[in-house]
């Protein structure tokens, strides 16, 4: 199920790219819990909608809503990009 060769950090994705969340790595437990509660659970499909005018934060679309995260927080989220519209 997991293909480590294909993982990237959410913070490195370009605008408009869709990806599947694989894991949240690092950060204290409360930090991870927060992101999980907001729906950033492994398996979730996520899209990078746009970045702010100064390049940070980034706006994500997931589970039918829009969430802005700073890049340093998004860095903890490992994703598998879906390049060939497999979703």
């Amino acid at each position, binding site marked *: 199920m997991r293909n480590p060769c294909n993982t990237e950090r959410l913070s490195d994705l370009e605008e408009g790219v869709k990806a599947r969340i694989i894991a949240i790595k690092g950060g204290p437990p*409360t930090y991870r*819990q*927060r992101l999980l509660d907001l*729906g950033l659970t*492994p398996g979730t499909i996520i899209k990078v909608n746009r970045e702010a*005018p*100064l390049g*940070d934060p980034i706006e994500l679309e997931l589970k039918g809503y829009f*969430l802005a995260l700073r890049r340093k927080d998004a860095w903890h989220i490992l994703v598998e990009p879906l390049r060939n519209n497999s979703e």
Partner: protein
Amino acid sequence: MAYSRRASSQQLRVVIVGNPNCGKSSIFNEITGGLQEVSNYPGVTVEKKVGYFQYEGQTIRIEDLPGLYSFTTYTDEEIIAFKEVLKPDVGLIVNVVDSLNLERNLYLTIQIMELGKPFIIALNMTDIAQKRGFIIDHEKLSRILNVPIVKTVGNKGIGIEELKSLIFKQIKGEKAWLPKHVTYGHEVDTVVEEFSEFLRIKLPDVEKEKARWYTIKLLERDSKLLEKIKNQISEPSEFEKKVENTIKEMEQHENEDSTVIIAQRRYGFVSGAIRECVSYTGEAKQNITDQIDNIICNRVVGPIILLGIISLLFYIVFKTTQEWKWIPFPDEWLSPVELFEKFFEIIALSFSFLEKDYPSIHSLLSDGIIGGVGAVLSFIPLIFALFFLISALEDTGYVARIAFILDRLMRIFGLQGRAILALLISGGIGAGGCAVPGILATRTLQERKDKIITMLVIPFMSCGAKLPVYALLIGAFFQHHRTLVMLTLWALSWFIALISASILNRLVIRGEPTPFVLELHPYHVPVLRSVLRHTWGRTWMYIRKAGTLILAVNIIMWALIYIPLPLYQTNQSNNEQHNIEYSIAGILGKMIEPVTKHIGFDWKLNIALIGGIAAKEVIVGTLGTVYHMEISESNEQDSLSANLSQHKEWYPLRAFTLMIFVMLYAPCVATLVTIGRETGTIRIPVFSLFFSTTIAFLVSLIVFHIGHLLSLGT
């Protein structure tokens, strides 16, 4: 309050719970019809809202809890909401669910189900969901969750009667619904089942539902709960080992963290329910939010629009309340602020018969009470207009975009994007504003640390009350460089505020790092009714403060300035200048002169500055009194200006240093009181007082000495 007595004391509590921004408040407002009490939970900035409604002749009490994303608490709001939900006297939970954001909202619903307490769902904003092409079969959803559901449109008052009737039936016990058990998949369910049986052997008093909930919390590694249970049982270390083993077994089996497993399964349950109950009717009206955001968050156009909207906001606020004279008065036209000032002037005049025989009583009434409180209250039109437009802007969803656009910039200084609004309200555009609503605006910041840092730098902005001081001194010494001086002051205030923020950010001890999360809601057209309600709520709080604490402090300040110490009470006691010189403030002013002389201030100036702590408006008036100038009533500022410019003690550098000092030093009493109320501690306002004054002194010292070295304006 009369109506609180009517609600019977043994009645179980009804609480409204939901995600932030799910429309909870509008449902609460519609249910209670405005019959509500707003206070703060002790020690925190979180508002406590309690309301009442009548049903079949009975009064039912209902509380609107702060919004929360989940029961894993982390902001002040969430901690309070969670604590309240857990209290045993909560008889019914009303869970407001936003249909536009069903999946994440139902995640909280699942956690309420886990609690095993009776609850009902208000499925909100179904009208917009339908417009977007989503049909929600709420009856089916109700069967799946085994929870009654009412469809509502909070801001239009739709479904409210039905909701009231359901609440009534629930608490009167006609139909006691208990939610179904949440299923987490076969393996996890078995673990939960077995462990909760084990837990009930250890804690026989705990009923079945609660044991289940405890189990799930323990599997999520809730350390507080673990400690609590360990204190209640005989073999705590063995119990902890058992918990640890259960978690490990589950994690090994699922090859995932236990917290991830639980969150994932909850969301799994939600998406299962959604698959069954929600249908999408194909290409409905396309969501325009994304298209608007393409423009508003654009790299080039975005910041320009932002600047435009903010300028327009302030243009409208200041023009309509201060500059445009559009209110008819018997023999002239007045602006709303002038109308309020006139009102207090008339009150003050009505006491003038006291002036001759009881000069001190007259002075207390006119200078202490009406002068001080009037100065605060005359800002009401400004505050109301500001809050009105900002509430409307918040409702549209644009404020979240401001935070999104500016977050990167503000982060350089350890502030959040949301802090910008608070700074602008406080006078950040250099043309007035007020720190009190600015402090109140820090409520939108989630983290306490962010709130406190923002509150500490807000007073550096040039609020409206500092402008008369600038006007006076610029008029006297910088006639030909008005714009340049104002611009320098404006830039300096931002510079000091941002630099202080980054210093404070390094000094204040960081708690556990939490991710910055900002939800970007779809754009809405603001609803006048809710904007007005919101605006009035905030304005009323301001008025209440002016009428209580600010009044008291102003009387004290008046006594400090205008009453000579008994030792010095002579037959000259009608001479105001003499009185001030030998008042406590006067003595104090002389006492600190050895320090303040380094920045060019003598005791006379010190008195005015001490008075300025009550309200910055006082400074010009006090300066006038201590310099004992013949000031004609009609043209106070100009003649004082002219007088100062000819006074031998005064020169441009001194005036410039004074302006900088006034800009930066101690926040006014109203601001300090507000900071105290908002942080729930006296330490922060006391720190703010010393912090601002120290910064002001240091900056003034630098400016004054560099000015002297370069012989600028000496």
